[in-house]
């Protein structure tokens, strides 16, 4: 089994600052980490790979320092890493990103399963997984909450979709996107940390992908959606009434609030 895991290096969301006046995002004080959902994708891949004698390749697109995310994934057990990095890739939207990732998956060779997290915590679109499947021309199963069974030919998973849960069986090649419920990611091991320090990370630029990648479809030029403006909204104003050792008043006010929004009838 050859499994490709899509990962993204994201800022530590707790430390990102948002400047409301300037409409700017300041990531400078925030460190980076692997997008939390992608750790679940990696864990799913590692478990399947261990039981099928497979190989796990982590793939990311980003600036040179995104290499750290790949080394961390290898420290957690992945076999190898591929970094797609080129100024030409900068400014890519969902479509351009999916186009670049899918062309790299094609170039990397035969694969059975691609696993991605359901969304990134920064871009937050949750669309790249399904679009990569679209550009690869393979089916996908999204919002996978549990992996029930797998063989060399297919995988059975629980997909949370259509206001319910469905047990779906997908034949390879297939892409799945996973939620946090699918597993608990393992921590890096000492042995793998040593390996991650030494391992060679494959780096591909546009030049390496040009046989499978149309230059008009990447980067800002190849991105049909463009951010025109960023707004940092003010937190909505709330009543903000505080009650401490004053239950009676609290209950009275709550009852009135329930009445004024017509949840309770007026007495």
């Amino acid at each position, binding site marked *: 089994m050859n499994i490709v895991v899509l990962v993204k290096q994201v800022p530590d*969301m707790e430390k*990102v600052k*948002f400047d409301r006046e300037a*409409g700017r995002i300041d990531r400078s004080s925030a460190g980076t980490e692997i997008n939390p959902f992608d750790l679940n994708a990696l864990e799913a891949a590692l478990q399947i790979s261990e039981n099928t004698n497979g190989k796990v390749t982590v793939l990311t697109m980003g600036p040179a320092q995104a290499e750290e995310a790949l080394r961390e994934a290898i420290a957690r057990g992945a076999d190898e890493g591929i970094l797609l990095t080129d100024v030409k890739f900068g400014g890519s*939207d*969902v*479509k351009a990103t999916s186009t670049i990732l899918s062309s790299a998956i094609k170039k990397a060779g035969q694969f059975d399963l691609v696993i991605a997290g359901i969304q990134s*915590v*920064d871009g937050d*679109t*949750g*669309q790249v*997984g*399904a*679009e990569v499947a679209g*550009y690869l021309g393979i*089916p*996908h199963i*999204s*919002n996978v*909450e549990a992996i029930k069974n797998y063989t060399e030919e297919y995988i059975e998973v629980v997909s949370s*979709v*259509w*206001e*319910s*849960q*469905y*047990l*779906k*069986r*997908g*034949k390879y090649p297939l892409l799945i996107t996973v939620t946090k*419920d699918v597993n608990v990611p393992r921590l890096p091991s000492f042995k793998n940390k040593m390996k991650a320090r030494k391992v060679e990370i494959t780096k591909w630029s546009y030049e390496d992908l040009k046989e499978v990648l149309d230059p008009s479809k990447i980067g800002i030029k190849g991105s*049909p*959606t*463009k*951010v*025109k403006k*960023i*707004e*940092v*909204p003010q*937190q*909505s104003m*709330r*009543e*903000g009434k*505080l*009650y401490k*050792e004053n*239950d009676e008043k*609290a*209950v009275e*006010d*709550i*009852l009135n609030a329930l009445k004024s929004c*017509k*949840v*309770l*009838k007026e007495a």
Partner: protein
Amino acid sequence: MTEKIYNGILIFAEQKNNAIHRVSYELLGKGKELSDKIDCSLNAVILGPEEINVQELICRGADKVYHIADSTAFNKPDELIYAENIVSLIKSIKPEICLFGATTFGRSLAPRVAASLETGLTADCTDLKTDSDMKLIQIRPAFSENILAHIKSDIYPQMATVRYKEFEEAKRDADRTGELIKIEPVKTNNDLIEILEEISNDGINIQDAKVVVAAGVSVKSAEDLSMINELAYLLGGEVGASRALVETGIISKDHQVGYSGNRVKPAVYIACGISGAPQHLAGMKEAGVIIAINNDPSAPIFDIADYSIVGDMYKIIPEIISAIRNNELTI
């Protein structure tokens, strides 16, 4: 003036078991506003059996309804079958704008459609406007809801998924007329994915609830949950839960509120013993009135609550319950 090559708005009307999802009416509501400004038609596509009441989409404002009809093909959430049929329709009618509800299915389907059409897609919009050039401005939160990005597409169709419960439903006009166009599907089966079964859920729909009474890990057992159930029942609401409580197994995942569970926007949200992790707040901060009860005065939930009660929920909730019962007696 030369005629536009891409013209009109197409909304995807989602259905399950022949029932049209309400987000479809919200898309028609917003779609009408946009189509009036752009001066174009507003149309809907629905995939499913003959029996669906597609006339309802006309009553809610659709000028044309494209009904891709098959007795079985669309009765399961199979993105491949849906996508191929929708793509085929879009290629033939060339809408300038295409809107999907950002439901779990819509969010999984729309990217496949966008990839097939090689067009852009903006996820999870909370507002849509027209620019002076009559193109769509798509407004969406990002960075875990901390910013709002205004996005424009320069390829047609301009595609977006739109968050459920963001817009008003289109008003119903029983006498409204429109055109119903029945279409033969181009694909009805998929050998690559087999949908084996729908795993039964208990049928709660927390996203539609007017009141959500949510509990956190201060609830230690199923018995403790009974006062939460009672309060929700008295208010005609549903019971919600933090991710941590769902993880204890006391309550099922359908009740989970948060960024990775259900996003809810009820008229009233009562958070009982929930401290308010960012993940949880992202799923409920847009509620009308937020009431929070917690024994920790520094709980982050209090930062966004209208009514913050510091104290023991095991004492306060029964007091609220008895006050509601007394109120009923006096009606």
